[in-house]
């Protein structure tokens, strides 16, 4: 597995990335994210726990 594929898998396994939602071009950009940045995202994802089910309409409602 290439480094880029490994990065995508890591994000997918962590529940951060759903590959089917992105085009091949977008996934190519995601695969270039640095290891350090991926770690930040994975760490935060673990802290958040499981997402609430059937709540896709929910938004933060925070604005500037």
């Amino acid at each position, binding site marked *: 597995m290439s480094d880029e594929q490994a990065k995508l898998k890591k994000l997918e396994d962590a529940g951060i990335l759903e590959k089917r939602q992105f085009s091949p071009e977008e996934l190519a*950009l995601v695969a270039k994210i640095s290891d350090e940045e991926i770690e930040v*995202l994975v760490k935060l994802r673990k802290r*958040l726990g499981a*997402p609430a089910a059937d709540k896709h309409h929910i938004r*933060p*409602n925070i*604005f*500037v």
Partner: protein
Amino acid sequence: MADAIRSAMEDLLGPPMAEATAAARQEPLSAGHGAALWMKFTLAQGLLNTAAQRFWSDPEMPRFFPAFLVELYSIVRCSVPLMERALARAEELAPHDELARVTAGYLRLHIAEERHHDEWLLDDLVAAGMDREALLKNPSSANAARLVGAQYCWIEHAHPAAIFGYLGIIEGNPPLPQHIEEIRRQTGYPSDVFRSMHLHAVHDADHLAALKATMLALPLTAADERFIATSAFATLESLVRILEDIASGGEDDGSTATL
């Protein structure tokens, strides 16, 4: 003597952030960095949505909703002054800095779009039964100060384009009318409390489209991309902490005890 100390410090710590950023910005520019940055924002926005789903689905949400409103006001009232400071810095740098010139152009338009929104939100909080004068005098929570203060640090000491990371996360998930109505039903507050949320539901999708178009065209180096992503991820972490602390009744929950 001062130069010797400065030199010794730089040996230990590297050059000051602004100089480091300026040096890094001698790298080749590429429009592709904007697209890569936007993908980072997209992943981060997904995480913020996950945090939001937990926050708004909490059975205790009606109890802590007033604290959310106070914290939201703390953030919103900082927004235009923050963008004005970023604009001023960008205008200072613009004659010799293309990224600063584009940043300034974007901010001039966006500040006009966001001006007075703090006053509208204040009216909404008053409609929720809070005291206007007390809200105006209420100092922002440490969490809100951390969120906004990080931007002042980067704007002053690195580059005003940091604010794209802030805006990209906060404006990345515009409110949805269906969700606002759900909150209204769950909390029992009158419709007037949700006027600002509804206005943002209407307008923020356009704001997001304009921000994305700007981001994709930004003249960025690889170092700029990393820098703005750092700002975005710090913004994400601060917002998650704000939601967590409000829900848990933490010390930085924007206490409404005196409001």
